[in-house]
């Protein structure tokens, strides 16, 4: 909503600067986005009086003028304008002024034009940022010859009356009453504690009985509760007067002609949209407010044919729709050059109906934006009278004295309990009751018998909390005290929250940077990581109105997100990226039910000394810190994501039977798809599963009292036997006294037969109750060798 300060002055007298006004209004609840002083736009433009004009000595198409600019000496200006003559007043851009024409800006300088000095430039409407709608008498193609009262040397801004201040408000959806000059004037009156003066509009019309010409029938009385109509005979279509054009312009509305301008003017002034129909096109003199029939069509004012449904409310004549109720008129119903008689409409349409129709038709108009928020059901006769009054004042036609008011509304003002003690307790303030009453009454909220009576234009007021807000905002939110909440509260992180925190801390401590990726992805991501065609992971929660395909499904796996970021860093030639993210996956459940949103830890690495075992080390450090032990790594079998990985350098991770996740080197094909030119490694660990197997009960174990016994052993076995199997065998063979097995060498090469490998372990044993003897250790080693021989592993000679 753009407000003309001059217009506002009709209703409240304020003595503040624009900046003070904006600041105070913002703090009382009418937020100002910006304000513009119109005259700033016209700084440097001065009225010049042409004293003489002669043809340029070196160019027939140019003229040299001597111009009185209000200074002692006349100024010489060269122009190509044919329409100026001696004695004319014209706007002059003086030296130093920046002039914009189309997309080009230039600064006026003293210059020689074909050898003759010129010190300024005559301006047309466009240069001044005006159109012919603002000054209908001006020649839009040439210099603007002023017909205003003015004198040489005067600012063009004041000569043209463009010295208003336009204030742009952001009005919230609960305050449609503030989408009007009078509504904002009321707020200003309460904010600055000055009186508000609004006169009841009156007009004198002819004695004609409108009902002989026009009938109004409301068929859908639920969706249209009130319809007022007035008639103007013998309209004289002309430009509206300057003051009206200026106010419309300052409000951001383009002046058109007097009749159209009047409807816009009343809408801006009262917030009530008005419509004007040409009586010739109201067939049968009958206005009917009804639901459209399915398939019924209307071509709206913007020239687009629209198909209607039976859910949409229309204004129809005896034959066809002439307007979509509350949104836009039909093509032929509007005011034209040869219009003779005009019907004015001021009506109440039910907000949801207008909103739904406007959404369905994809049409948002100034009118629909007001209707959908809910209007004052008592304002229709007032605004109609205001329109007719303006017709009369402007001499735009002959109003008929009788009007139609089809009224099925029954607005009952909201009565809300008023309890100053409660309000103070709720706000935590100590505002005297008399002040509260004063604030409320300045907003036209009546306070009687411990009740507030909401005015009809304040449909948002329904509860004591609403009244508390009115009091608080006029009192000033910032005048409220600041207190600390009292009472007891127990605050602690849940075990799950602590667990997640530990995971993140560990990921950072092992060298990974935290990243942040989108939750949505492209369905193509599934192909990019080679997900099987029939994988359930391809069944993703889909956004029906996505910004684009790339962000159209909620990810069912975080692996593509991580690969995207690795690829991005690779493309930036970053030599190394070690990354992690704790975030969610979204797994659909049943139709019309929410997906599950499990958290996962995703680690992604490339560069530096990243390899499978570094990744495994990071994952294991996380497990250690989380209290997860007994983890197994097996060749991927179950996971659909396994195809994203190198088949022989990847693992599924289990704790007992619990699947924890998948990790490994990314498959070369996938790397290629993502444009990653180095080996990259990704692990994805399911946090809820990890939590379920974690043990965070820590009990102190006594430090060992007796020395340990260490035996080293070197074995030769088939290269296909995993080290893990050998370790398991050793562990089982040693039994209880085993403290630790350390792998210290794996060797393949000249000394070893082909297809074999040498594996060396340190086996550390200790008895809890006594010193382990050499005999005990030897006997344990015998068992170990026996077990290893069974696996085909023998002592290396």
């Amino acid at each position: 909503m753009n407000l003309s300060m001059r217009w506002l002055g009709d209703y409240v007298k304020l003595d503040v600067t624009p900046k003070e006004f904006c600041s105070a209004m913002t703090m009382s609840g009418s937020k100002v986005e910006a304000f513009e002083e119109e005259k700033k736009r016209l700084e440097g433009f001065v009225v010049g009086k042409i004293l003489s004009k002669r043809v340029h000595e070196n160019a027939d198409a140019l003229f040299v003028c001597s111009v009185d600019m209000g200074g002692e000496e006349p100024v010489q200006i060269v122009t190509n304008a044919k329409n100026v003559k001696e004695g004319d007043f014209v706007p002059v851009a003086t030296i130093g002024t920046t002039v914009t024409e189309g997309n080009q800006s230039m600064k006026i300088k003293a210059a020689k034009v074909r050898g003759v000095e010129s010190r300024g430039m005559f301006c047309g409407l466009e240069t001044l940022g005006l159109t012919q709608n603002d000054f209908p008498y001006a020649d839009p193609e040439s210099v603007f010859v002023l017909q205003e009262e003015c004198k040489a040397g005067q600012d063009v801004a004041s000569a043209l009356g463009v010295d208003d201040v336009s204030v742009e408000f952001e009005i919230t959806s609960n305050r449609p009453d503030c989408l009007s000059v009078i509504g904002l004037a009321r707020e200003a009156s309460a904010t600055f504690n000055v009186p508000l003066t609004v006169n009841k509009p009156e007009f004198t019309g002819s004695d004609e009985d409108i009902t002989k010409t026009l009938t109004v029938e409301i068929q859908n009385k639920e969706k249209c509760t009130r319809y007022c109509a007035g008639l103007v005979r013998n309209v004289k279509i002309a430009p509206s007067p300057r003051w009206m054009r200026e106010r419309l312009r300052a409000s951001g509305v383009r002046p058109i002609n007097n009749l159209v301008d009047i409807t816009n003017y009343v809408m801006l002034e009262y917030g009530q949209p008005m419509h004007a129909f040409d009586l010739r096109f109201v067939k049968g003199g009958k206005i009917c407010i009804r639901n459209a029939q399915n398939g019924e069509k209307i071509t709206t004012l913007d020239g687009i044919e629209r198909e209607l449904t039976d859910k949409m409310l229309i204004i129809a004549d005896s034959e066809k729709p002439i307007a979509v109720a509350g949104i836009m008129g039909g093509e032929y119903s509007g005011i034209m050059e040869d219009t003779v008689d005009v019907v004015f409409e001021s009506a109440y349409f039910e907000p949801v109906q207008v909103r739904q129709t406007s959404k369905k038709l994809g049409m948002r108009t100034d009118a629909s934006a007001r209707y959908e928020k809910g209007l004052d059901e008592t304002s229709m006769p007032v605004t109609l009278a205001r329109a007719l009054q303006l017709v009369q004042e402007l001499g735009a036609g002959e109003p008929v004295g009788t009007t139609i008011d089809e009224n099925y509304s029954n607005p009952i003002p909201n009565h809300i309990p008023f309890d100053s003690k409660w309000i103070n307790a709720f706000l935590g303030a100590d505002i005297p009751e008399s002040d509260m009453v004063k604030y409320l009454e300045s907003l036209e909220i009546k306070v009687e018998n411990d009740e507030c009576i909401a005015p009809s234009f304040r449909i948002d007021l329904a509860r004591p909390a609403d009244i508390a807000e009115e009091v608080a905002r006029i009192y000033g939110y910032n005048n409220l005290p600041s207190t600390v909440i009292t009472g007891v509260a127990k605050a602690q992180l849940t075990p799950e929250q602590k667990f997640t925190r530990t995971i993140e801390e560990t990921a950072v401590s092992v060298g990974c940077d935290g990243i942040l990726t989108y939750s949505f992805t492209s369905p193509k991501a599934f192909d990019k990581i080679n997900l099987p065609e029939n994988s359930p992971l391809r069944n993703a929660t889909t956004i029906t109105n996505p910004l684009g395909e790339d962000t159209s499904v909620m990810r069912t796996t975080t692996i593509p997100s991580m690969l995207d970021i690795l690829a991005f860093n690779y493309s930036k030639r970053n030599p190394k990226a070690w990354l992690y993210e704790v975030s969610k996956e979204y797994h659909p459940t049943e139709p019309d039910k929410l997906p599950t949103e499990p958290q996962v830890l995703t680690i992604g690495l490339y560069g530096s000394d990243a390899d499978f075992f570094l990744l495994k080390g990071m994952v294991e450090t996380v497990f250690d810190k989380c209290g997860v032990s007994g983890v197994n790594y097996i060749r991927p079998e179950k996971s659909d994501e396994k195809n994203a990985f190198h088949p022989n350098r990847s693992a599924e991770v289990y704790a007992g039977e619990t699947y924890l996740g998948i990790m490994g080197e990314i498959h070369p094909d996938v790397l290629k798809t993502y444009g990653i030119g180095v080996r990259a490694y990704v692990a994805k660990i399911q946090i809820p599963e990890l939590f379920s197997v974690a043990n965070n009960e820590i009990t102190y174990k006594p430090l060992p009292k007796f020395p340990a016994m260490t035996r080293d052993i070197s074995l030769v076995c088939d290269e296909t036997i995993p080290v893990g199997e050998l370790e398991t065998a050793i562990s089982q063979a040693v039994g209880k006294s085993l403290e630790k097995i350390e792998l210290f060498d794996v060797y393949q090469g000249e000394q070893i037969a082909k297809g074999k490998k040498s594996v060396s372990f340190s086996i550390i044993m200790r008895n809890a109750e006594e010193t382990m003897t050499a005999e005990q250790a030897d006997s344990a080693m015998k068992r170990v060798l026996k077990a290893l021989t069974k696996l085909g592993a023998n002592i290396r000679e």
Partner: protein
Amino acid sequence: MKEQLKSIEERAREAVSAVTDLKALDELRVKLLGKKGELTAILKQMGKLSAEERPAMGQLANQVRSQLETMISDKTKALQEAAQNARLAAETIDITMPAKKPETGHLHPLKIVENEIREIFLGMGFSIADGPEVEYDYYNFEALNLPPDHPARDTQDTFYITDNILLRTQTSSVQVHVMETQKPPIRVISPGRVYRSDAVDATHSPLFHQVEGLVIDKGITMADLKGTLELLMQRLYGDDCKIRLRPHHFPFTEPSAEVDVMCFNCHGAGCRMCKNEGYIELLGAGMVHPWVLENSGIDSSVYSGFAFGLGLERIVMRRYQISDMRLLFENDVRFLEQFR
């Protein structure tokens, strides 16, 4: 014998001072003081002396022994020190050479600020709640007093999954979950991802983060809301940080406010950063609407409460003077490594 003793002392003095390493010094010690050493040899002659001469000579011999010992021990110290110094000198390193840094990673800047906010609120007795991001319309809108076709829905461009399921546009949805499952007193915050259909640019992202706060108890006032937010902002931005509340409209709070924080750059005077306002809009807040309380089964005549929601990206960008939001989601390691 006296001469012999004098002579041995003098020779020893010369020899000790000439010695340059510990090994030679030890050899010298053996030569002078050892069982087969010179001094011992002289002392063996003691027997030949008369009983009168013996005590005086014995005393002298002991003096000489003690002097030789001191001489040698002083020299040992000196040589040890010299050797130590030589070693230290030889071990000189260039301390300006690059460090061997253990690799540690970095928290994402958004996480850093989120953690800080979590801690501030934990300290104020708030617990932390979580809620679904893919959400029923009911929790995101309806239960927050935004029925279908409410015009305020326009301000939040929503991604829909079905007519009834959407990506939450605000963490306020968690309010309703909390009120359904907990009885007052309630004191929670809920940080998380929210979604709005905004194309990506320097200040917009279809996914961003909010922290929701909710307090419900007997006697909670708007002054409490003000005090809590002041405390938050002072913890985040320093004790001289000032906030201001502007009346606003949210369907789920009444009274509602937008909260501005004094511009860090100009301290309220007005500058380019704050568009000459002196203040920067930071969050929305208000007293929980009685309808919302009642809808969740909380008696609004007994309990009152406040709620607020703040955008994390905005705070992060201000704090680190990041001018383009896209940097937060690109995850370039050269960007990530700047935060700690």
